[in-house]
């Protein structure tokens, strides 16, 4: 890890993404260069259609670029197959979505345990880790509630607990406050900022609310499939 913390964690080099073929082809990303270091809290902003979601999908190893290279800790992700990318997500990434995406009729505890189940952790470790993660997001005592019994803010906290229970390197949040009122939104942002600060988790967040972007240390604006502005902090440019 000590080596990785010096070099960039994530590197986009001339990333393009094209959907469709021939006449109907649509280029969502048109050569994006981006460099993210460990420990950053980065907001990706931009109007709809600017390619920010596409970039997020590629960053989350859910999608592959059409061309260019994507290095994650120096590994060329664009060359990995579906299963290898799944393993990469399993071990290094955590996801938070706009719509929470918890399993219905499943307790908070079991929802948080899900990623550990796929990692093959033994039951004791799973229960322990899930309780700790829920405590970290301030949901101690809510372990046995199902999503239907929780408020939107609480559901998003469960989702964050699920994302961090594996102690990932990177937390990817796709409009995490999109479905919440402003007070809950600020609570969630404070939580993310705290996790970034205290757990040293790199947080990448897509948002279109400038209010939320102020919590971050760096804002990248996308326009028409290209990076329009970027404000890397001192000494963090690659």
């Amino acid at each position, binding site marked *: 890890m000590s080596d990785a913390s010096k070099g960039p964690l994530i590197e986009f080099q001339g990333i393009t993404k094209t959907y469709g073929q021939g006449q109907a082809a649509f280029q969502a990303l048109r050569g994006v260069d981006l460099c993210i270091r460990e420990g950053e809290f980065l907001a990706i902003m931009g109007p709809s259609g600017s390619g920010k979601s596409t970039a997020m999908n590629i960053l989350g190893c859910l999608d592959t670029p059409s061309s260019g290279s994507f290095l994650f800790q120096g590994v060329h992700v664009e060359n990995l197959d579906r299963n290898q990318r799944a393993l990469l997500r399993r071990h290094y990434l955590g996801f938070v979505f706009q719509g929470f995406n918890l399993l219905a009729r499943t307790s908070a505890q079991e929802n948080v345990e899900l990623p550990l189940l796929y990692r*093959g952790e033994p039951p004791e470790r799973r229960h322990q880790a899930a309780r700790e993660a829920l405590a970290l997001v301030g949901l101690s005592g809510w372990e046995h509630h199902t999503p239907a019994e929780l408020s939107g803010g609480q559901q998003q906290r469960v989702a964050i607990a699920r994302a961090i229970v594996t102690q990932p390197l990177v937390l990817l949040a796709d409009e995490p406050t999109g479905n919440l009122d402003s007070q809950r939104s600020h609570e969630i942002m404070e939580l993310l900022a705290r996790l970034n600060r205290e757990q040293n988790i790199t947080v990448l967040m897509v948002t279109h609310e400038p209010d939320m972007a102020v919590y971050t240390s760096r804002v990248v604006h996308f326009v028409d499939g290209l990076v329009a502005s970027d404000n890397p902090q001192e000494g963090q440019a690659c």
Partner: protein
Amino acid sequence: MLMNAILLALREIRRNLMRSFLTILGIVIGVAAVITMVTLGNGATKMVSDQISSLGSNLLIMRPGQRLGPGRDEAGAPKFKVADAEAIRNQVGSLQAVAPVVGSSVTLVAGNNNWSSTVTGTTNSYFTTGNWTLGSGRKFSDEDEKVGRSVCVIGNTVRTKLYGQQNPLGASLRIKNFSCEVIGLLASKGQGAMGMDQDDVVVIPLLTAQRRLTGNQDVATLMISMQDGADSTRVMSQIRQLMRERRKLAENDDDNFNLMDTKQIAQTLSGTIGTMTSLLGAVAAVSLLVGGIGIMNIMLVSVTERTREIGIRLAIGALENEVLLQFLIEAVALSALGGLLGILLALVACLGLSALTQMPFIFDPGINLLAFAFSAAIGVLFGYMPARRAASLDPIEALRHE
């Protein structure tokens, strides 16, 4: 990975208990139907063979005419006489008893009760050939048989219908237009093959029957029982040869009597029931298949319904194979559960039906195991396609699914 998948699948089934139950209902009914049909078939076969052996072990039945059954051409064939029975008894080896039998349907009257039944005129040998034992009283004496006394031995049904719970011994029974004394009561045999009541009988001496009922010297049927271990083929050919001589048949004449081995009837009947059982089992197996299609249907719906969930699983790092395995195991667990419930249901149904029809209940582990294995196999077969579909979903598309 397998343990995980099993855990996930069971959790999913528990999460949708009602739907899971409805899904497996088809399999439950299919498995129960197959097992019930086969078990009842086995019971019926057992019952028939039991009853035929209760007719008498190693029993041969000889009747005039060429064929047995409907359209029997009995008209032209000469009847047997008592002398035929004696000749067979004396000249053929390995025999236990030969009983000449005449029968007649009559109305029986005792006191204020009457009852329609069949009277059998025969000798004491009949009790041997028919495997009858006396419950109480006595058989015919030599005197009874020689002079044709009006005495009778009755079966349990006749006793219940005419005398209720009273002791019938010594009572008088009017048969058609003559009265006779009840001297014996037969031990009950229960229901016979093809549903006839074996206990609905009245037995009187042959001579009495010939004089009072049929009015001639003819004997309708000869019941011949062989000794244990006798070679029935040899005995039958000896009897046939003897009867051809006695009836003065030429070389190229057909037999004008027929001789049957009850064992053969039993085998034929068992064979028929076996065929019926296979047929019903096959029909039931179709319903099992339909149950399997039901599972596939629900699993496909479930995959569509849970697209988002699959997306979540894939996003947090589930491998394609893990999702495939989860859905496959879900299908197999469902159908295996259906199989188990089906076996239980079949057990209840078989116990109930066998009590109702008085057929013996024979637990057949083979068919239970087969039906269970088949239902699990159906889970794999019909679960694979939905599972494949779930595993090959694109996580981004799946997460966007509403």
